[in-house]
């Protein structure tokens, strides 16, 4: 065998691997969508789920998923951006910085079930909130924060140095430079990263099993008072999200149409993730246009 022939073989093997991975994704998506889409009707999306009868929908679970994501982002975004700014602009090469970096890595690699167990100890039992949206969101914040920090840090580091130096040369202070120059320039990449991270949060179940719980109280969508028990906006109520719902209908449902509900919910989850990704890409592309044209 000549080295040329080996080269050809290797190339085709790598091509085959790439093809296989694309095929796996297409197969997964194809399966989920063909099984699930027939179930996803307007009715399915807008009726509450049933624990007993067939034909329940996923209205509340869908709302919960978005609401938990929203509350998580309220915590994560300011903290993550702050942490990212610190790591990119303020962190000196000290032991402390090294330690923070280690902490970020540890948090990023923690199993979500461990985060869920921590949430059960602290946000459910210690605080006395019981299963609640806020507990779930805080657990997901732990899970999502390292991602946000890394995204912000990377985005800030890609800002051209001369932009920063020009600002400093004009006598601007450091924080002012960060606030008015760096963050706005890095903002698109931060946003893209945040949306991609949202996709992960949206489908997370293990960390929520023990924190946001497996049930949803009867919600009255006309009640917008966030302190009322039956208001969808109340953060101290338990909330079963879509991903947790797939889990729970499989484990404890006695509804006859478990499979349909799970298929439909899976399809909705995957489509949501797809939309998140498209949004992130779309924003990325828009920004790219802005950065390259007419500057």
């Amino acid at each position, binding site marked *: 065998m000549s080295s040329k022939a080996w080269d050809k073989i290797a190339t085709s093997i790598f091509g085959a691997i790439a093809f296989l991975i694309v095929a796996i994704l297409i197969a997964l998506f194809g399966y989920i969508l063909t099984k699930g889409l027939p179930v996803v009707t307007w009715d399915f999306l807008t009726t509450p789920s049933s*624990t*007993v009868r067939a034909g329940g929908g996923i209205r509340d679970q869908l709302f919960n998923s978005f609401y938990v994501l929203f509350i998580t982002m309220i915590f994560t975004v300011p903290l993550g951006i702050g942490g990212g700014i610190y790591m990119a602009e303020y962190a000196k090469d000290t032991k402390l910085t090294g330690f923070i970096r280690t902490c970020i890595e540890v948090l990023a690699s923690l199993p979500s079930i461990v985060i869920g167990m921590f949430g059960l100890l602290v946000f459910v039992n210690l605080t*006395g*909130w*019981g*299963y*609640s949206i806020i507990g779930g969101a805080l657990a997901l914040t732990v899970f999502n924060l390292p991602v946000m920090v890394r995204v912000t840090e990377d985005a800030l580091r890609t800002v051209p140095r001369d932009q920063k130096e020009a600002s400093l040369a004009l006598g601007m202070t450091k924080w002012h430079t960060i606030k008015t120059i760096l963050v706005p320039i890095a903002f698109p990449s931060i946003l893209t990263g945040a949306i991609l991270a949202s996709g992960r949060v949206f489908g997370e179940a293990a960390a929520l099993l023990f924190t946001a*719980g*497996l*049930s949803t*109280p*009867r919600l009255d969508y006309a009640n917008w*008072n966030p*302190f*009322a*028990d*039956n208001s969808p906006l109340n953060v*101290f*109520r*338990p909330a079963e999200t879509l991903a947790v719902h797939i889990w*729970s209908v*499989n*484990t*404890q*449902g*006695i*509804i*006859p149409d*478990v499979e349909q509900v799970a298929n439909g919910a899976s399809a909705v989850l995957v489509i949501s993730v797809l939309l998140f990704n498209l949004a992130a890409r779309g924003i990325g592309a828009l920004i790219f246009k802005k950065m390259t044209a007419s500057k």
Partner: protein
Amino acid sequence: MKARKWLSFLGLSLLLVILAACGSDDNGSEANGNSEGNEASGSLLVSGSSAMQPLVAAAAEEFMAENSDADIQVQAGGSGTGLSQVAEGSVEIGNSDVFAEEKEGIPAEELVDFKIAVVGMTAAVNPEVGVKDISKEDLIKVFTGEIKNWKEVGGEDQEIVLVNRPDSSGTRATFVKYGLDGATPAEGITEDSSNTVKKIISETKGAIGYLAFSYFTDDSVTKLSVDGVEATDENVQNGDFPIWAYEHSYTKGEPTGLAKTFIDYMMNDDVQNNLLPEQGYIPATAMKVERDAEGNISNK
């Protein structure tokens, strides 16, 4: 501008005060009851057994349809969680598929037991094993791994595949205690979910597991009779079929207010005779025999 802010703040605080007065804080400490003597309002937290969750959730749905001021939240989480939470006071009602006395670390003497329903269980087998009736002796041998092939109990020549429940699940505890006379089952696949167990048994050659009666809705799995006694609701009620368990609702001390109203509601004839059987549970009120925490049976 400022005035408006203050107004809305005041409005919010007023709302808060009113809500707090209704006793709808998170722990739902309903103990103080209602000033108006109307005991079907306020909020109530129920948690525990996943086997009971559908029943209690359905009862709660109907209850709330009749009493629009009441808000009952039924959370799952498992019997252990339910008992723990009711014992520590974080929920008013804790559901369990085992007696509180059977769980470690639960102050059973502080809890009041309401037997809401009865669930019958039996062994479920793959339809192709060719066995419909099994003696208890053989059942124990099958589950302890002494008998490894169905032909030894008069079935097809197929290897036996066991499907178990998690160690502490109430379903498993009941089946082991009354179906296997306490013998420890051999190792097999372990699944928490009745749906999954049913699916595995229906798809796997030679599989046997155990399910509550309510899951025998179609022919995908075969319901085994034990010692010639058919696994039916009537036989459980008469005390002829041994494998059954109570579904308990526990409260810490005597229930008051909404908790009491709701438990009474679950025990009334309408729920017991319509809602329960509809979901495959056996009404506790229809039982002709009783059982205590030690497992002693007596006639009612």
